[in-house]
């Protein structure tokens, strides 16, 4: 696949490789979900993956932290290869932050406890220190005043911001977003995207499965288009939106950009 070479691309490619995927295949039973995926993502790079539903885009990013097991190929995250070794998997999961479509906050814990769970139990951080850090991240997602509440008392947008803060508390080197705004009421999409944009500005490596084309256009370095388990097109946002190469991409764009 040829990417257009721009000067900031070259700078970025000088960065160390964060995620390296080679010849990745996955099947659900007989169904071939991911077909020969090759993808290299450098530190600080922001990638938006779009494509029709069932194209395998969620499955792809779920393979990166082993929520799905791949059957063929190789995934290396921050220098650690994903194997069946559970210790390895846990190590990678602690490095990779994940934000889900349905937030998946722990409803029996307060917001603060949701945030400190990982640092205390996985990072073995003292409680006081973990709470201070959690409060700092809640500040950052503009929700510190809700720390003592339970997830069920928050709006969808607030919950998703908490979920982002929860991932950040693990100090991840990559953040994966699996359709983070698709389950939100329209008026809450912006508050979540704003937090993601702030995160992007700080140089976080991000892979975002999303149909928020405005977000892709302003934040992504690369936009990938997936269909039927393959990456059909990968390009800079400008080229992707103004000059799509593939027929399937053109059709998809015409359908979502009314």
């Amino acid at each position: 696949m040829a990417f257009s070479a721009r000067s900031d691309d070259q700078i970025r490619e000088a960065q160390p490789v964060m995620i390296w995927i080679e010849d990745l295949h996955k099947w659900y039973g007989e169904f071939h979900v991911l077909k020969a995926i090759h993808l290299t993502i450098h530190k600080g790079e922001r990638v938006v993956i779009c494509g029709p539903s069932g194209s395998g885009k969620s499955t792809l990013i779920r393979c990166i932290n082993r929520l799905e097991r791949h059957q063929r190929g190789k995934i290396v995250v921050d220098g650690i290869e994903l194997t069946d070794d559970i210790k390895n998997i846990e190590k990678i999961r602690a490095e990779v932050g994940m934000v889900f479509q349905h937030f998946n906050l722990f409803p029996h814990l307060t917001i603060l406890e949701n945030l400190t769970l990982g640092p205390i139990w996985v990072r073995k951080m003292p409680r006081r220190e973990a709470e201070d850090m959690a409060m700092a991240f809640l500040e950052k997602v503009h929700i510190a005043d809700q720390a003592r509440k339970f997830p069920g008392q928050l709006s969808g947008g607030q919950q998703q911001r908490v979920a982002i803060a929860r991932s950040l508390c693990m100090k991840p080197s990559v953040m994966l977003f699996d359709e983070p705004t698709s389950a939100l009421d329209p008026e809450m999409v912006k508050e979540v995207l704003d937090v993601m944009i702030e995160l992007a500005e700080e140089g976080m490596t991000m892979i975002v499965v999303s149909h928020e084309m405005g977000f892709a256009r302003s934040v992504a370095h690369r936009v990938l288009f997936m269909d039927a388990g393959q990456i059909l097109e990968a390009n800079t946002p400008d080229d992707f939106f103004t000059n799509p190469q593939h027929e399937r991409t053109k059709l998809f764009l015409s359908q979502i950009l009314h």
Partner: protein
Amino acid sequence: MTVYYENVSDIRPPVTSTGVIGWMRENLFNGVFNTILTFLCLALFVKIVPPLFRWVFIDSLWVSTSAECRNIQGACWSIITANYRFILFGFYPYELQWRPTIAVVLLVGLLLISRNRRFWKKPLLYAWIVGLFTMEILMQGGWGLRRVESDQWGGLPLTFLLAVFGLAAAYPLGVVLALGRRSKLAVIRVLSIVYIETVRGVPLVSLLFMSAVVFPLFLPEGVTINKILRAQAAIILFTAAYIAEVVRGGLQGIPKGQYEAAESLGLNYVQTMRLVVLPQALKIVIPPSVSVLISAFKDTSLVVIIALYDLLKTTQATLSNPNWMGFSSEAYFFLACIYFICCYTMARYSRRLEKELGAPQ
């Protein structure tokens, strides 16, 4: 379209839908059928309650000899007042019965304190350890107290012993079995399924018989294991299988996203279960687990069939005394009251726990 605005904040609900009259109309007399039912129930009530009241309180004797009881219409509560020490303590030496009394008071006290979740801290754990040790000394003797062999134990202490330890041990075992049944490792899963289905497939009575009769045959000559302990084990193993199925239901009610969120934070299996899944799953299954625990509590009375003198057996033994034969209604009524108090307390507590643990939505 026209929109009318008026000040609606001070309009009161119609009188007929609130207050006593409103409630009665709503609940007792809404429709012909319900009205008839209400009057039928009222008639039944009038027919049953006054005679029962007479039997229990007016025509009854509370402290008397059995001979006096033969001449009255009402209840003979004297069977209880005359025999309560045997019913409550069985063959435990009469002059030493202060010891099981203290043990039971201690146990009930600890249970009552443990109801309050604010006390669920280290000191309570120590209190339990000290308490259990004291109870054992009190029941069994030693440390200067006369020794009382466990085959002399009976009545209320025995029932409580079987129930409290049976339930306390069965619950965690059941949780482990439930997790085992959902394990990804085939061996653990199959073993759990075989265990659960086997135990659920046989009556408790047969397990008790096996513990009393069959199990000792497998032991080498000269080795004996206390009969109470064996019955206790049978109750634990039996109850655990039922708890396991209830807990499995709870585990299935936890969305997959919860596991995924926990795992993607890097939590391992044990942490995921202990910190995220089980707290939610066990809360969902409080009502059915308490049902299992209540029925297990009542099932401890089945140990009569292997001749352990629990509360039911001591009551039956009292009734077989020629002096007090024929007063079984009163004796069983008393027994039922004890069981009811315990079970109702459990049920009440489970409702309270549910409310306390419910995260605000």
